[in-house]
């Protein structure tokens, strides 16, 4: 015995009916008569929480049923089963499994799918996009934290000349523009812009006497340019930003945040390693020691952390601090060992 309310689809009038299973048919019984619906053609709405279920047959109207247990009983006798998705939506265990799977999927997509997709797109990006990104970034940086270089014209020319003499792997172009600037706030640093310019700060030039060490840094930055790391970072953080904005429900914040993303973009560990590898290949191609890069890295770190100057012990090299995973730059020492094993 299953009681239901029947609506004929032509008026809003409710009719109290009872539904019985009659072989391959459902028998709708009311005070005014009986109707038989062939079971296979009856559309039975899926179970969704404790909401009323709905049986409908062609354009013959529908029944609303609130007695879930009685309907389940009737369906069991008729041999109709729940579909698996229905089960999924009602089990607490499955809800927990789903929650965990969401986290794992998102992490995996963030770690593997996103960098891969960004690389595929970035490597095909037209030069105009890269130039535009480079120009606007340099303009913003000039405005915010960079000053004119105080380096002598002779020294600048000397560095440019040395750099243009470098041979690069894969016959990559060497006409990257070196932009001389100074910035007491950023300290000893150099960074690549998407259009192929490398911003070289006076503070970095002052950190070493060895021009080849500067070449090692430039080769590293060249790796960032060659592998289009800036664009890849922008793409990756845009996708993350888009998803976060969608989740938080506000698209408009995204559009205004793109310049900020560009400014804050720090390369991922993978990208730093990739650029290191590129620099090592460049140095070897030019008959220079890869250790130039690692020695320069140590000098840069010393310039940034003056207090921490004592030589590291082997224990330190094996120890990965938890901070390592958080920072986007792989610990300098770890990189130095990778680049130059006898370091």
């Amino acid at each position, binding site marked *: 015995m299953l009681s239901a309310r029947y609506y004929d689809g032509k008026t*809003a009038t409710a009719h109290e009916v009872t539904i019985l299973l009659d072989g391959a048919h459902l028998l709708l019984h009311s005070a005014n008569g009986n109707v038989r619906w062939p079971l296979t053609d009856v559309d039975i709405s899926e179970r969704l929480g404790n909401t009323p279920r709905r049986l409908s047959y062609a354009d013959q109207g529908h029944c609303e049923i609130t007695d879930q247990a009685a309907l389940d009983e009737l369906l069991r006798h008729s041999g109709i089963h729940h579909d698996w998705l229905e089960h999924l939506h009602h089990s607490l265990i499955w809800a927990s499994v789903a929650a965990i799977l969401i986290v794992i999927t998102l992490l995996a997509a963030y770690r593997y799918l996103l960098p891969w997709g960004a690389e595929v797109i970035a490597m095909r990006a037209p030069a105009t996009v890269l130039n535009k990104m480079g120009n606007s970034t340099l303009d913003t940086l000039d405005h915010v934290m960079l000053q004119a270089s105080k380096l002598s014209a002779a020294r600048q020319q000397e560095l440019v000349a040395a750099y243009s003499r470098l041979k690069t792997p894969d016959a990559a172009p060497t006409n990257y523009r070196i932009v001389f600037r100074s910035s007491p706030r950023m300290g000893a640093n150099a960074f690549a812009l998407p259009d192929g310019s490398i911003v070289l700060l006076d503070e970095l030039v002052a950190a070493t006497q060895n021009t080849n060490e500067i070449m090692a840094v430039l080769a590293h930055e060249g790796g960032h340019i060659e592998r289009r790391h800036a664009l890849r970072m922008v793409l990756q953080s845009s996708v993350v930003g888009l998803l976060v904005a969608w989740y938080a429900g506000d698209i408009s914040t995204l559009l205004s945040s793109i310049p900020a993303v560009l400014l804050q973009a720090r390369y991922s560990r993978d990208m730093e390693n990739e650029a290191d590898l590129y620099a090592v290949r460049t140095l070897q191609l030019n008959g220079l020691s890869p250790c130039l890069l690692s020695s320069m890295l140590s000098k840069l770190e010393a310039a940034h952390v003056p207090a921490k100057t004592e030589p590291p012990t082997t224990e330190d090299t094996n120890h990965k601090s938890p901070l390592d995973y958080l920072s986007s730059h792989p610990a300098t020492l770890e990189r130095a060992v990778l680049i130059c094993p006898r370091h």
Partner: protein
Amino acid sequence: MNFAPPDNIQPATFISPAPVTPQTYRFEFTGSGSEYFKIWIVNLLLTVLTLGIYSAWAKVRRMHYFYRNTHLDGANFEYHGMPIAILKGRLIAALLFIGYSVAGNVNPLLGIAFFILLAIVMPWLIVRSLRFQLHNSSYRGLRFAFDGDDRGAYRVFLLNPIFAAMTLYLMAPYAHQQIKQYQHRSSRFGATYFSFTAGAGSFYAIYLKLLGMLLALSILIGVAIYEQSPLMFGLPLLFVFIMVYPAVKLPNLIWNSTGIGRHRFYSTQEILPYLWISVTNLLAIVCTLGLFVPFATIRMMRYKLEHMALHAQSELSEFVAGQTQNTSALGEEMSTMFDVDIAL
């Protein structure tokens, strides 16, 4: 085996109960946060795993859950939208959205051209969207429908907003009133049309009060900054309180001015409970990194629906079916993608 209907099948001839005196029916909402959480999280998982494809099915499931948990006079609402139709609409909307974003970045002129194109298409889409939404909603076996014409849509969704902008938004409350009037007067349940009686004056009253409160608060903040008072950090929080005012008063005004046939709707939301729900929802969502979202949705929905009622002059059973029409989901998905609020 052959399941052809037997010969004795006849349309049922049931007799409706006798009519009665006027009565007020409250909307009831029976959704539960924990129940919806399970649906929500499985929807989210499948959407992520299918790179968004499942989102159309997820939407249908969500709509089913909300509609079927909304009751009036013992009967529940029903959603009939088809996932495939929604998916098609979403794909086209996503392509246009990406096109619009890219066009603006590649060439500002192209971006402007795209924007104008969208502005011209939008009213047409909104009409399709409303048709889809209403056509796919039913109650007591009768479908809702939207009969608004394109001409009216271009007037209220394109011309009026342009005029409003040109008059420094002096005409914005009027534009809002015109939208609601167009929307409600073109909607019907079965063969019975909705009515809308609020004039522009009552919209102006709400917007002017809002403007007054915003001005007063701005002056207070200005004074606080001038006086170097620590209040200058606390006062901006009052903006949240002020923005709740239209969020409560506008739906009240709109529904209290809406009727269907001889019956009238009532909405009695209040500011303090609404504010309490909004603020606690927000805090809980932040603290649970979003896991509270389904609970928050249910809480807010319950508050809104349970403060709505229908004052009926006669039995609700006397509504009859009207004409049906063909609809597509494109408009609905487009307008949600481009963030056009056409909340009914």
